[in-house]
């Protein structure tokens, strides 16, 4: 039976991979995907805490439910923004979208 630490390390690795991807990748869609990976990593940590520290109360799982709901909303809006952006500027390359400055 793997312990809490294993799940936390898995969660941390997923989170950091997602984070690295969000910084590195140029395509806005891939960045959104990476954010999903990060959220998933967080979900694992939540469920793991719920399982090992409060196995009966299930509060961690409740958190996860809400995180999934918010993530779904986020991905819908995020993709809508990306599509709108693509429609206006014909690109979703984040290196070319740099109006937010000075």
């Amino acid at each position, binding site marked *: *039976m*793997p312990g*809490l630490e*294993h799940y*936390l*390390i898995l969660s*941390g*690795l*997923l*989170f*950091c*991979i*997602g*984070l*690295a991807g969000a*910084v*590195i*990748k*140029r*395509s806005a*869609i*891939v960045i*959104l*995907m*990476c954010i*999903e*990976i990060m959220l*998933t990593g967080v*979900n*694992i940590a939540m*469920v793991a805490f719920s*399982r*090992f*520290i*409060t*196995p*009966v109360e299930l*509060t961690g*799982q*409740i958190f*996860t*439910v*809400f995180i*999934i*709901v*918010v*993530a*779904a*909303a986020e*991905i*819908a*809006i995020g*993709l*809508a923004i990306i*599509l*709108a952006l*693509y429609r206006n500027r014909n690109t*979703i*390359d984040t*290196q070319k979208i740099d109006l937010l400055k000075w």
Partner: protein
Amino acid sequence: MQIAFWILAVLAVVSAAGVIWQKNLFRAALLLVLCFLAVAGIFVTLSADFLAAVQLIINVGAVAILIIMSIMLTREVTSGNPSGKLGLPALAATGVLAFSIIITSVSSYWPLSSSSPLEPTTAALANLLFENDGFIFLIQLGAILLLTTIIGAIVLLRKED
């Protein structure tokens, strides 16, 4: 159980890394689906059967489909999955972060509970979520959030007259 965890964990990490590595954008999206599937399995090993189902339905079902659809809509497949110039510093920073997370989770003291988990969880979760003194208010907020999201997405993508 242990074997299942290790297989799923390695699968999740490798497919997540593949999302970044993979040059083909469409395959990257499929790897993301694989990652979600693996995480659903992880949920099962944590005896969160309901969450595993939610993960399958929402993330693997809805989110992945949305992403693949938008990849097609933006014709991003043709330009592949390029990386920016920030590769090395990003890897270094996230490496340090991962390292500190690992160190913290290993070295911290966790007040572990010895009682066995509830199984199945669906009825208990439903009670928690929909009871009057439970999370019913947040459920309703979530409903409002999703409604707002739908309207927002429509507004954002509506063609200007």
